[in-house]
C-alpha cells in the first residue's frame, strides 16, 4: 500500500524523523484554517500517489491567507496525471541549504534491505544512478543485526557528507531504518532530505510503501487506506477479496492464478485485443467467488466481452461452471463470454455449461482459440 506524502511524514514523525509541521485538509476552509495555524509562508501540497506534482502545479507557496485559499481552491480537485486531488497538505515553508536523497528498499537479489543515499537530492534518483552512479552510496543491511552506527557513518563518508553532518545523517538513517522495520515497509524514500541553514536534517518529502501482507499487525496503518481515492472496481474487488487490477481496454478477463492471468492478457494482446482488467479468482476458486468476480468485471461499463481462462488445479472446473451459471442467473450479462475450461473436472464443467445453455457463452478448447475468439467478439460489439 502506497501512502500519501503526509501519511508518510506522520509515520516518520512517530519514529523521531524530523519533518516540517503540517496539517492535512480536504476542503478549502480546512486548508485556510490549517495555514493560519501553521503560519506563513507555508506550502500547499497536493496529496496524490504519483510523482511530478510540482511540475503539474500541485505544490504552491502561500504568503498569506488569501494565497492559501487561492492555492487550495486551485489544487483541490485538480487532475495530476490521472489522479484527482482529494486532499492537500499544508506545511511550514522550509529554508533549504542543500537537497539530499535517502531511501531503503528491499533488494530481492541480495535478500536484504538496501540503504541508498546521495547528496544529489531533489531529482529523480534513477537519473542520478544513470549519470553519476558514484554519487550514490549504498549499503545492504543484515536483517538480523539491523543498521549499525558504523554503517551509517560509512554511508555518510562514502556519500561525501560534510564532517559536521556525518553523525546526524547516521542518526537519520538509523531512524529511517527503524521506521522501515517497525512499520514493515517495502520502501521508504526521502527526496529531498534537506539541510537547513541551521545545519539540521529534515524530510521534506516522504514516499512510503507498506507491506499489505503485514497490515494485520498494524491496525492504525491499515486504516490509512483511502477507499475514496481508489478506483470503484478495484475497491469492489478488494472488498470481495479478489485480486483485480483495472486496465484501459474493453475485454474483461478472469483466470485462476496470477501467472496464468498475466499470460492470458498477453495472449489476448497478441490477437489484437485490449484487456479491461487483470482478475485472479485465486487457487481453489469456489462458485461464489466466480459469481462475485463476474459482478466486478461487468461493473466496468467499458467491457465489451469477457474471457474466462481456467486451468483447474485446486480450482475445479465444475465449480467455475456453476459460479458462471449462478452469475448469469443473478446478473444476466449483456456481453458475450468466451469460456475455456481445462484441468480438474473439466468435462463435468463443460457439461454443466452445455446443459445451462447460457445466452452468448462460447466455449473454447485452448487458450489461443479462446483469446482469438474473445477479441473477435469484442470487435463485433464495438462495431
Amino acid at each position: 500500500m502506497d501512502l500519501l506524502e503526509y501519511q508518510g511524514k506522520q509515520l516518520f514523525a512517530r519514529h523521531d524523523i524530523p519533518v516540517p509541521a503540517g496539517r492535512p485538509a480536504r476542503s478549502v476552509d480546512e486548508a485556510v484554517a490549517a495555514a493560519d495555524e501553521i503560519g506563513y509562508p507555508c506550502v500547499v501540497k497536493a496529496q496524490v500517489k504519483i510523482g511530478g506534482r510540482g511540475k503539474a502545479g500541485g505544490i504552491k507557496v502561500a504568503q498569506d491567507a488569501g494565497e492559501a485559499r487561492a492555492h487550495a481552491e486551485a489544487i483541490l480537485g485538480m487532475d495530476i496525471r490521472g489522479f484527482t486531488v482529494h486532499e492537500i497538505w499544508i506545511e511550514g515553508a522550509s529554508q533549504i541549504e542543500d537537497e539530499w536523497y535517502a531511501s531503503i528498499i528491499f533488494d530481492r537479489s541480495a535478500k536484504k534491505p538496501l540503504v541508498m543515499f546521495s547528496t544529489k537530492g531533489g531529482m529523480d534518483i534513477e537519473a542520478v544512478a544513470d549519470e553519476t552512479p558514484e554519487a550514490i552510496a549504498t549499503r545492504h543491511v543484515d536483517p538480523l543485526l539491523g543498521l549499525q552506527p558504523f554503517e551509517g557513518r560509512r554511508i555518510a563518508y562514502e556519500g561525501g557528507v560534510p564532517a559536521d553532518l556525518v553523525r546526524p545523517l547516521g542518526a537519520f538513517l538509523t531512524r529511517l531504518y527503524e521506521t522501515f522495520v517497525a512499520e514493515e515497509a517495502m520502501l521508504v524514500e526521502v527526496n529531498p532530505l534537506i539541510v537547513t541553514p541551521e545545519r539540521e536534517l529534515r524530510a521534506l518529502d516522504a514516499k512510503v510503501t507498506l507491506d499489505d501482507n503485514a497490515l494485520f499487525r498494524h491496525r492504525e496503518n491499515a486504516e490509512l487506506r483511502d477507499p475514496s481515492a481508489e478506483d470503484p472496481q478495484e475497491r469492489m474487488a478488494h472488498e470481495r477479496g479478489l485480486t483485480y487490477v483495472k486496465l484501459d481496454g474493453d475485454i474483461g478477463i478472469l483466470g485462476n492464478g496470477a501467472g496464468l492471468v498475466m499470460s492470458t492478457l498477453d495472449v489476448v494482446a497478441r490477437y489484437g485485443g485490449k484487456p479491461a482488467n487483470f482478475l485472479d479468482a485465486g487457487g481453489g476458486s469456489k462458485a461464489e467467488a466466480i459469481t462475485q468476480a463476474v459482478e466486478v468485471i461487468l461493473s466496468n461499463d467499458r467491457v465489451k466481452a469477457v474471457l474466462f481462462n481456467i486451468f483447474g488445479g485446486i480450482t475445479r472446473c465444475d465449480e467455475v461452471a456453476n459460479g458462471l451459471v449462478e452469475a448469469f442467473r443473478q446478473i444476466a450479462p449483456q456481453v458475450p463470454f468466451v469460456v475455456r475450461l481445462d484441468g480438474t473436472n473439466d468435462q463435468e464443467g463443460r457439461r454443466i455449461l452445455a446443459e445451462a445453455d447460457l445466452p452468448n457463452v462460447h466455449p473454447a478448447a485452448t487458450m489461443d482459440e479462446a483469446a482469438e475468439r474473445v477479441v473477435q467478439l469484442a470487435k463485433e460489439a464495438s462495431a
Partner: protein
Amino acid sequence: MSVIVGSDTRLCVSGITGSEGTFHTLNNKRYGTNVVSGVTPGKGGRDVEGIPVFDTFAKAVDETGANTAMIFVPPAFAADSILEAADAGIETIVAITEGIPAHDELRVFTQLRRQGNVRLVGPNCPGVLSPGKANVGIIPAAFFKEGGVGVVSRSGTLTYQIGNEIAQRGFGNSSIVGIGGDPVPGTSFIDVIALFEADPETELIVMAGEIGGDAEERAADYIAEHVTKPVVAYIAGFTAPPGKTMGHAGAIVSGSKGTAAAKAEALEAKGVRVGRTPTQVAEIAVEILRGA
C-alpha cells in the same frame, strides 16, 4: 532421479489438521508421497487418517524421521513454523502459505542461510512434484507423467498449462518446481536450474518467469555460464502496466525495471529460446526433444 522431493522424501506437514492442510496432505499421500507425520500445536497425539500428529517439529522429527516439511499454516504463523522446522533439523521446507509478511520472510531467509543445509521452496508456491515419486504441495499430479523435462516456475497454474501442453505432445517431467510469486523466494531460478543441470534424468529445462525483479536476467547469465542442457523460457506480463502488482506480490514493474520485454531480451541474448505463449513454449521444447 528428480530434484528436491523424491523417493527419499519423508514428509511432515505443518498445519495438517486444518481443512486445506488435511485435504492436500491426503492428496499427496494418495499420490504415493511418504507422509510420515504432521505438526499442529495442541493436537499432539491425534492422527489424520493414520498420520500421527505432534505438538512440535522436534518431536515429529525424533519419532518419525521426517526430512521434509510442508507449511500450510496461516501467514501470521508461517515464519515461526518454518524456523521451527529448520531448527528441528528438517532439510527441505516447502512453504505453500501465501501472504507471509515480507519482513518475516527476510528474517527467515537470513536465518536459514545462516543455519546452512536447509532449502526453502516458496513461500506462496504450489510446491514440488516429481512424477511417479513424490508430490509435496498442491500441484495437480494427474496432468503430469514421468519424463525428462524439468520445469521451474514462479506461477502455479501457468506451470500446469505449460506442463499439460508438453504432456499432450507425449513428453513427461523429471520434476516440476514452483518457486512462488513472492518478491524474495527462498529458492531461486538459478538454484533449481543448477539442480536440473546436475540431475541425470532431466534432458531439458523449462523456466516460466514473470515481471518484477531480475531473477530471470540473473538466470540468463547463469545459464550461459553453467548450463549445458537446453533451456526454454516463458515470461508472463508483457502487457502489465508499470506500478501495479499483478496478483503475485513480486509481480510488479517498478519504473522501467522488471519488464517482461527486458527479461525475454536478456534470455535471448544468452541464447535461451523464449516462447511468446505457453503453447509456443511447449512447441519449442518438443521440437528440441525430438531433435535431440
